[in-house]
């Protein structure tokens, strides 16, 4: 399994965000993409997932397992997307949120079991009927991840998934996300501005790190990363 981006261009009006970008994302690894805010990282994820705002023009091919998906509607691409705010649907309880992700092909008697399994997997037993508003930030994040995974995506996109979490929760959750993703053996693309995220991703999964700068994506070597790190610290 893999995901491949070819000749991707994005623009808002006359302003070009990304021009003719190519990227290969390997399965089982967490590929990181860094870049300044406003550089178009998140927009790129929207384009890949098929949820681009209609005011933004996008073009280029997206291949998931060799299949072109760029002309499919979002729901048929099978590309999961996880945001920094664990966005649970506020009018549904935890179980219903997870059920929303689960494919309708799973028959009724098995559904609840599957959801319970997912909750156990995320060490969240006993919150099935809870209102998402009452959960802690860490709990919410894990529910959101499980919801995405229950949909059995062929690829996973992470949009700054850890930036809103407390330092303590962040570490354990980050490891949990990467482990789970690697276990599923699907391509993962993570957009972040936190150098720690990329370092963990690299050390755990061996995924490469890229930088989005001046409308182009360039690979970052270890030296560059240190540099970026220093720049951040300053």
């Amino acid at each position: 399994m893999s995901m491949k981006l070819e000749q991707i261009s994005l623009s808002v009006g006359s302003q070009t965000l990304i021009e003719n970008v190519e990227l290969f994302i390997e399965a089982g690894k967490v590929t990181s993409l860094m870049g300044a805010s406003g550089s178009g990282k998140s927009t790129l994820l929207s384009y890949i997932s098929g949820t681009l705002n209609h005011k933004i023009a996008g073009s280029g091919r997206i291949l998931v397992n060799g299949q072109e998906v760029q002309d499919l509607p979002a729901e048929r691409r099978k590309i999961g997307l996880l945001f920094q705010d664990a966005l649970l649907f506020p009018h549904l309880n935890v179980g219903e949120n997870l059920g929303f992700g689960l494919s309708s092909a799973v028959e009724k008697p098995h559904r609840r079991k599957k959801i319970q399994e997912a909750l156990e997997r995320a060490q969240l037993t006993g919150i099935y009927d809870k209102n998402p508003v009452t959960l802690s930030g860490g709990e919410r994040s894990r529910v959101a991840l499980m919801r995405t995974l229950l949909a059995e995506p062929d690829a996973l996109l992470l949009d700054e998934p850890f930036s809103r979490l407390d330092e303590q929760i962040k570490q354990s959750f980050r490891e949990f996300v990467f482990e789970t993703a690697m276990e599923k053996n699907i391509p993962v693309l993570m957009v972040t501005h936190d150098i720690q995220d990329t370092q963990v991703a690299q050390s755990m999964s061996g995924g490469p790190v890229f930088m989005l700068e001046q409308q182009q994506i360039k690979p970052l070597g270890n030296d560059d990363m240190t540099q970026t790190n220093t720049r951040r610290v300053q």
Partner: protein
Amino acid sequence: MCVKPRSFYTWIFLVVFGLSGLVACTPPSKNETPLNLSEITWPQIEERARGQTVYWNAWGGDQRINAYIRWVGAEVKEKYDLTLVHVKLNDTSEAVARILAEKAAGRTDDGTVDLIWINGENFSDLKANNMLFGPVSGVLPNYQWVDQEQPAFIEDFTIAVDGLQVPWGLSILVWLYDSQSVTKPPQSPDELLLWASENPGRFTYPAPPDFVGTSFLKQLLIAFTEQDSLLTLPVSETSKHLADPVFEFLDQLKPLLWREGRTLPTNSLALKQLLADGEVDFSLSFNPADGISGVLSGQLAESVKTYTMKTGALSNGHFVAIPQNASAKEGAMVIANFLLSPAAQAKKADIEVWGDMSALDIDNLEPEAQALFEKLQQEKRLILPNQFERSLAEPHPSWTKYLERVWLERYAQ
């Protein structure tokens, strides 16, 4: 990249677009064969009328009349399986304008008005435009009971009725006054002026072209000209000076009116409310039972009395007619016939119901029908035309228009 549309929009499309399509395309219900009065019998008409919906356009400002029309609706539903819809008008000319607009738009059948409560200039307008169906009166079985010698039913505002409208009742323009403040009601226009000068701000009349307001002007016209025969003819250059005294009188009256005549009540019901509120001491009505019923219902003070002036009271007939382009002519005829039945007429004449004077010649009715009216008379619930002073016939309808136009030019600007 745009979001792909789903079948759900097709569904919404079908519902909403289908709905608007339905609005545009619903075929009007039509009768298979056109109605030819010379080739059809009354039972056949009743048969064809069954199940029809009749839109009766009738002035709807009086709750008691509306209630009577509702009663008619219930009766014809039960007896003839007819649905009667009372289209309430603020002024009969609204419906006349609609019929003429339909004619202008080429809508010669399937019109929106099936039956119209009408007389005078509105009748004259429709007759002149050939927009009345008939003659229908002779076809109606109950027409035999109508007082056919009544001049108001032969000529309506001097225009020959010709069976194009069916008599329904008789009206007389009566005065209501509060006997607590008016001890000796004026008996002529001049006495009225005198009273008004002694009691400024306590008298007013409905603003023409309101029906009653214009009738007040006509009554003045007849009184001042002492029923000149020129009034039965159209207004001409040589006869129009006859109206001058009316406006000289109104000029003198104006500063003495309620609110110095700067505003007038919109119609006779508004005037009645002013009398009820004690803002004025007089009201005018074409329904001689108005005062009595107002007192009974508690709207008017018990001191309110009804009378007509010694110089006479304007009197006319009122009718129902069927427009040429009506959709449910048979149903309209069945209703017109029902309205002439002794039972319907007796109910209408009951002061507690409406108090409108009957169109029938009571002496010629069958005994059991006569008994209905006799019972009312015994219980003092009946008003008869001969109770009032001289009744004055309506002038030619062109006088109505002439008086209204001059009045508007002089007082409405």
